[in-house]
């Protein structure tokens, strides 16, 4: 006993006098960690914004007199088309499956999320091959209706808009669906009791109430559309994003690329602002209430089959068709396989992709943990503002972030090289790319981590502190294990997003670090569709993991 008690008395040592000297006054202390994180994350964006203050006028004049008007017009047209398309398809389908009963409803309810697994550019090249002049659809069309039978020109932007709408409608669908579910029972029943028919209830109750969700969903879809450069390139519909990549990669004109990227950033921030306005004060996504499920209107006869056909058509076009085509290509590629071709690099590209996405996931989620942790410790408006700043990268196209990151690290690189002769230590390695991934995917990670951290009651932190745990101990011993699920979800989401990311990867990847996405894109750009199907299918397969989790857990966004 004596041994134990003696050691315990040393544990319970009296307050050391030193402790008084080291004591600090919380309010006077600056939240250094969140400041640092927010600073590092926003620096690329700020530097890019600073570029706007010193515009290279002759460059802009040249851009304006040549390619800029068309790119700007295309970008706006794409935004308008994809915005309208995803809103109509996403909202319509969500209303169909939440407020109606028809054959296959329960299946479609979840299956309609599947296109989330499909990066737009993969869908793009599959659709390109199927629907362009030489593709099977137009060929069949001509053989049915004659050589000169008119067929819409998929290069005029229509093709890109349709493809992106099909890939991106799930964002609207997902948020609209949960909004409809939450609002439904009481309000809609009240409306019906007041003699409001289903159609009027939709326009007068469901839509206005779901407006914040619809705005958020459409904004997410548009952010994705804005970051894309590959799909629009396949369809010869150059947007500003495409222009940034072309100037950078194709012509190595990083100055012009940066200028163009700053313009794109303005568009992205404008979109963010519009979304905030539309969302108003409402929270755009509340977790499923415990209220009664809405009574679904049972559709009968032709209407029931009509609903089935609409869902089936969208699911077929947006998922079954592209995946099916990819599988057919993959089979014929493997069948006619010439030894010594793709299988020699497949493993290497898979390794590169998984390494990059894995490191990105760990880094991003690590920073997100620190950020969420600081948010709890400090609970100040400053810190929550810093957090919001740190998570705005999701709204910015990958090419914009790449340009900003280069602006940030290139001077550091040159300085390091001058001092130590390190060469392209940062820009030539994965540092730049990881930086870009962290900026772009911080929001995804933070949201997931924070929502699980919210489940940890503040008193647990306090209990740990009274037991002698320092803030970082709390993070390690209490918060981290408790948020493990949220962290896992965040890791998966960032991993998959990084794997699907194309523009920043293309622009910043270290030399020789090709990924499955880059490989698929390069092959597809040369119409080596069969060969491209193998990396593309790999991406889709991994991309299905979070979608399946999403489908199982219901409506977690």
């Amino acid at each position: 006993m004596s041994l134990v008690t003696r050691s315990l008395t040393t544990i319970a040592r009296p307050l050391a006098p030193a402790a008084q000297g080291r004591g600090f006054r919380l309010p006077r202390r600056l939240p250094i960690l969140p400041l640092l994180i927010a600073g590092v994350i926003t620096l690329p964006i700020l530097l890019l914004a600073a570029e706007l203050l010193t515009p290279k006028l002759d460059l802009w004049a040249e851009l304006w007199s040549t390619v800029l008007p068309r790119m700007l017009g295309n970008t706006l047209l794409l935004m308008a088309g994809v915005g309208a398309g995803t809103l109509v398809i996403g909202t319509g389908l969500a209303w169909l499956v939440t407020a109606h009963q028809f054959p296959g409803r329960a299946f479609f309810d979840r299956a309609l999320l599947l296109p989330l697994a499909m990066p737009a550019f993969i869908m793009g090249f599959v659709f390109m091959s199927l629907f362009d002049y030489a593709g099977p659809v137009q060929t069949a069309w001509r053989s049915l209706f004659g050589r000169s039978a008119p067929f819409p020109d998929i290069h005029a932007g229509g093709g890109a808009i349709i493809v992106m709408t099909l890939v991106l409608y799930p964002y609207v669908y997902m948020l609209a669906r949960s909004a409809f579910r939450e609002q439904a029972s009481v309000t809609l029943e009240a409306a019906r009791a007041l003699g409001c028919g289903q159609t009027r209830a939709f326009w007068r109750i469901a839509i206005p109430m779901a407006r914040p969700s619809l705005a958020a969903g459409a904004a997410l879809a548009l952010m994705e559309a804005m970051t894309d450069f590959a799909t629009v390139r396949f369809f010869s519909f150059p947007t500003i994003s495409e222009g940034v990549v072309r100037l950078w990669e194709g012509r190595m004109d990083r100055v012009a690329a940066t200028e163009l990227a700053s313009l794109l950033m303005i568009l992205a921030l404008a979109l963010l602002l519009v979304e905030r306005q539309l969302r108003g004060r409402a929270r755009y996504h509340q977790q499923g209430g415990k209220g009664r499920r809405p009574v679904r209107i049972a559709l009968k006869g032709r209407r029931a089959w009509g609903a089935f056909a609409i869902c089936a058509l969208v699911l077929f076009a947006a998922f079954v068709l592209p995946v099916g085509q990819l599988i057919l290509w993959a089979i014929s590629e493997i069948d006619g396989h010439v030894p010594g071709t793709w299988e020699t690099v497949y493993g290497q590209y898979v390794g590169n992709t998984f390494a990059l996405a894995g490191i990105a996931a760990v880094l991003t989620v690590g920073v997100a943990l620190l950020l969420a942790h600081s948010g709890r410790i400090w609970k100040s408006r400053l810190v929550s503002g810093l957090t919001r700043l740190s998570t705005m990268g999701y709204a910015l196209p990958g090419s914009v972030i790449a340009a900003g990151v280069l602006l940030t690290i290139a001077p550091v690189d040159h300085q390091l090289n001058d001092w130590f002769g390190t060469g392209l230590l940062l820009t030539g390695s994965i540092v730049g790319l990881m930086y870009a991934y962290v900026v772009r995917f911080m929001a995804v990670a933070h949201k997931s981590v924070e929502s699980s951290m919210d489940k940890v009651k503040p008193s647990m932190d306090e209990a740990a502190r009274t037991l002698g745990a320092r803030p970082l101990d709390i993070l390690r011993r209490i918060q981290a294990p408790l948020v493990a699920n949220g962290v896992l979800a965040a890791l998966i989401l960032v991993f998959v997003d990084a794997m699907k990311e194309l523009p920043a990867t293309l622009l910043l990847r270290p030399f020789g670090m090709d990924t499955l996405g880059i490989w698929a894109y390069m092959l597809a750009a040369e119409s080596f569709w069969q060969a491209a199907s193998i990396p593309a299918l790999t991406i889709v397969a991994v991309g299905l993991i979070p979608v399946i989790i999403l489908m199982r857990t219901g409506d977690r966004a």
Partner: protein
Amino acid sequence: MLTKTATHTLECAHLVKRYGAQTVLHGVDLHVRDGQIVALLGPSGCGKTTTLRLIAGFELPDEGRILIGGRVITDRDTAVPVEQRQVGMVFQEYALFPHLNIADNISFGLRGTAREKAARVAEMMSLVGLAGLEKRMPHELSGGQQQRVALARALAPQPHVLLLDEPFSNLDTALRAQVRSEVKAILREAGITCVLVTHDQEEALSLADEIAVMFDGQIAQKADAQTLYQRPATRAVATFVGEANFLPATADGDRADCALGTIPLQEASHGAVSLMLRPEQLRLTMDGEGAWAIVRWREFYGHDQRVGIVLDSGETLVARTDGSAHFVIDEMVRVRLDGSARAFPESAT
């Protein structure tokens, strides 16, 4: 067995805390002797929890200082971080770490070798009477057991002061009395300096050596239970601690005249006063001496009963008597006072 090496008095001097324009503590002074249990009792919003959080160090006062064992842990220039204060805390919702089993919860705050920790955990488990449940997870325990784990966890690192924040409010009423006496026994055995926050007077009266009653960010009175009950410092304290009747009277030295006749006072007073009469001081009889009153209502509890009466003068009083007497509503009874009354000078209101 627990060893104590130093005295750990707690001293709070003139604590002021403001949230923006609102001042929630108006200069709180609180002295807790080594090994003493003091309850902070008051209605919600009175500042008792804020006081506790200032002691713990979760928040810092705008003025005033806090000392433990004579050492400053908070004043204008010093703020020892929570984790260095060696202040244990039991939270209202226990705040057990759901991912750790009971033993790991208790050893969370311990330093030293694994063997030392295990020994201390075993010691604490037997102290709180939970030996054998080391490997259980928190959600597998009952509320009372969780409460004791929280206590053991807070006590394990031998804090200088233990803070308890509404520790019984999450328990069923039926369980409370039992858990309360268990906790009291544990605290006594630990011999620890202890501050308990509660809005439940019964809890405060039964657990604490001394009770500090707080209203509006100030301590109205700090005394042992009996003094508090019998000699409340203010009308507010009298009302909050136990049930009280008030009767206007005119005092003259150690006696006062009121609707019940002339009554002895605890302390001499003069002029218009308000007399505080505890319900059990009022004796109701069918015959004998005393002022006449009409029975208005009656609540029967078995071993005793509460009876509402109206005096001739129109004042309503509540009396508490044993359960044997039978009172009929709207009948007349006689009322007289047992013992002496406490007189509060009638304020302007």
